[in-house]
C-alpha cells in the first residue's frame, strides 16, 4: 500500500509516491492506494503547470486504472476539512472513514507513506 498524505508540488512526496505505485504495479503486486490529510489535494482536477514549468503528474494518476491499480481509497474527513468533493478529483477513490485507516495498514505486509 502507498499512502499519500502531503500536498503536491510544495514537496515532491506525491510525485515520488506515484512513481512508487507504478513500479509496485509493474511487479504485479496487489497495490492499494490511500489518500489522507493533504494527500487528497494531490488528485485535484484542473492542474495547469504553464505558470511554473513544474512537472504536472495528474495525467499519471488518471492512468492508474490502466495499470490495474483499482483499490484506491480516500479519507472522508480529510476531504471535508479541505473543501474537496469527489467531483473535484481526477480519479474516483472509495470514501472511507478515519477509523478504517489503521486497520488497512495492519492488513498490509508493508506500506509506504509519502
Amino acid at each position, binding site marked *: 500500500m502507498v499512502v499519500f498524505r502531503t500536498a503536491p*508540488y510544495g514537496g515532491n512526496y506525491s510525485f515520488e509516491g506515484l512513481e512508487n505505485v507504478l513500479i509496485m504495479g509493474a511487479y504485479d503486486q496487489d497495490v492499494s492506494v490511500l489518500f489522507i490529510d*493533504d494527500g487528497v489535494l494531490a488528485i*485535484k482536477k484542473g492542474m495547469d503547470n504553464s505558470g511554473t514549468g513544474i512537472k504536472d503528474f495528474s495525467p499519471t494518476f488518471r492512468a492508474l486504472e490502466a495499470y490495474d491499480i483499482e483499490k484506491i481509497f480516500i479519507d472522508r474527513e480529510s476531504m471535508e476539512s479541505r473543501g474537496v468533493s469527489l467531483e473535484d478529483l481526477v480519479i474516483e477513490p472509495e470514501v472511507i472513514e478515519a477509523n478504517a485507516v489503521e486497520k488497512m495498514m495492519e492488513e498490509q505486509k508493508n506500506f509506504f507513506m509519502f
Partner: protein
Amino acid sequence: MLHLVNKSPFESMGFEDCLKYAAKGSSILFYEDGIYGALPGTAIADRMASVTSDYKVYVLKEDMMLRGIDKIMDGITEVDYAGFVGLVEENKTASW
C-alpha cells in the same frame, strides 16, 4: 510588511505563527502550498474570513493553477509573479 506563507495551513502552524506577529493592516501572500489557505468551504474558512478583514491577503495565481485551484474566498486577491514582485517593491518581506 509583507508576510510570505508557503506551507499548507492544514499541516503547518506557520500561518498562525505569522498572524501572531503581523501587525493589522499588513500584507500576507500565500504561495506554494500556502495557497490552500485561500480555498473556500474549508474547516478554516471562518478563521480566514476574520483574517481577511484585518490584513491584506493575496494568493499567487501560478501556484493556484499548478494545484488545480480556481476558486478562492472573498476578500483574497489573486496576484501573478509580477504582482508578487510589486508587493516586494513596496514592502520588506518575512518568510514563514
